[in-house]
């Protein structure tokens, strides 16, 4: 019953609802990454404001969310917001008024977006209340866990040391 302590410079946010089938991939991946050293790992529903607040003070953020199916359930999209925009066809908007896409847009407009933001979006196919996660998305979750575990060890996502310590061109994958 206390307010959370100050933020870690690197945060991993699993976005989604574990009770709605493939929408649970964000929380599932976050749960698997809980023990990553030096990383704050949280789960959030798709409330934009909570996501913005969680990012507050962080230098880098990795966000995991389910996406609408485009081609194959379980297909993993890695979007580096330093280089790319969120593709509209992934449907990363919430069923409510503000979703991940809106959270990122609002945080950017308010100059509150962390220096680096990587979004892992996994195409899902079943979002029914109470449904279990599909095998394809569950398998993708394991792969995303491995990708993020490797990625957060790279200098590009770690808080910047003095400028001379920075490895030019190291931006993750």
């Amino acid at each position: 019953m206390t307010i959370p302590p100050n933020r870690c410079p690197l945060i991993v946010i699993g976005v989604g609802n574990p009770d709605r089938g493939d929408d649970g991939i964000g929380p599932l991946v976050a749960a698997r990454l809980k023990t990553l050293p030096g990383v704050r790992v949280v789960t959030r529903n798709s409330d934009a404001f909570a996501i913005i607040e969680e990012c507050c003070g962080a230098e880098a953020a990795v966000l995991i969310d389910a996406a609408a199916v485009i081609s194959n359930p379980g297909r993993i999209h890695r979007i580096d917001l330093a280089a790319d925009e969120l593709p509209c066809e992934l449907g990363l908007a919430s069923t409510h008024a503000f979703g991940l896409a809106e959270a990122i847009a609002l945080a950017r407009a308010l100059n509150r977006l962390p220096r680096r933001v990587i979004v892992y979006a996994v195409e899902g196919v079943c979002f029914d209340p109470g449904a279990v996660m599909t095998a394809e998305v569950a398998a993708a979750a394991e792969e995303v866990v491995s990708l993020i575990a490797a990625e957060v060890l790279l200098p590009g996502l770690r808080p910047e040391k003095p400028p001379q310590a920075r490895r030019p061109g190291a931006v993750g994958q």
Partner: protein
Amino acid sequence: MPNTSLTEPRVTDRKTIRVDMIARVEGEGALDLHIQDGKVVQANLSIFEPPRLFEALLRGRDYTEAPDITARICGICPIAYQMGAVHAMEDALGLKVDGPLRALRRLAYCGEWIESHALHLVMLHAPDFLGYPDAIQMARDHAHMLNAGLALKKAGNEIMRVLGGREIHPVNVRVGGFYRVPTRADLQPLAAMLGPARERAIELLRWTSTFPFPDFERDYELVALRHPDEYPFNEGRIVSTRGIDLRVADYQTMFEERHAAHSTALQSVIKGRGSYLVGPLARYGVNFDRLPDYIRSLAKDAGLGPVCRNPFKSILVRAVELVYACDEALRLISNYEVPDSPAIAGTPRAAVGYGCTEAPRGICYHRYEIDADGTILTARIVPPTSQNQLSVEEDLREVATRNIDLPESELRARCEQTIRNYDPCISCSTHFLRLTIHRE
């Protein structure tokens, strides 16, 4: 020059404007506006979201389950539903919850009002007045106010988390009190957030008072809870500006729900009179004298009198209530003493219980019949958006009539703004709101 005025057959002015989805409302519904020969002939707020049948879900469940089930009705105002349910169950059991437990309930209510009002004011409603399509576009020019709103929402959420166990669908509320109560130390970080949050609420009130408001008023019958000495959250009589003054248990003697073919939500009316208004404008109008002097003074400085009948100025009243909720939360925290027990015990009996509380959007009425072992036999829940549906339709008819010569896009925008005046929670009343304007 052709002579057309007398010889050509009269062409009926017929037009259809369609908006597939109105953004910035909670839930799914539609508005059909029919305009014929320059006159608005029909305005239907159609709620087509499938009924969720919570009242049926509650039947056969134990009375102790009602707070957790009803909390699932809404992600924005779960406290209102929980509190309505616990008050009704306590009424049935003959329990009276007072002292620090009652104070904690008021504090939870402060949290819900703060997070709900801050969200609506800054993110959903303010863009309408400043000509932005959404809060994201508005943020580029008004970042300070957006950040103020977000800080307030965060403070409200923290209250909810500390008292409710989590921010959405709290799990710590029970019939008779709470499962766990905070220590004084638990509440101190909240006070540290609420002090600055209060100042930001005053900034938001001053900011919104500079907005351009349409010159529009309607003679609503304002209906709200009224308490002998408090601005109402969870206790009081049901009072209106036209003489209604009822015990909560007598609600159904004056109010009834009816089915409209175009809506999956029931619509409430005052028997023999029709529409009425609940929510911030009603609460404020019925209870202006219950606000502390300095908040009345802030309201006056913002251009508000003791009663406001301009629905577009509901944004001002929400800002006033934001200030009040911050102040009241600070007062409650300052005076808080840990209760001897987190809840008082009750014994079920065959009875009917009634509850009514002031959700951010207005009064929310509950009635439950339970049997001797506490099983719920019947349940009735009347959410605020159901009660405001007719007023929304009447506002739309009037607004559209007055603005009928506006270009289509402007008329559409004004109609959407009219709906957002109500911060409608369509999910509660039964998600997207579609607006269709038919001109014939």
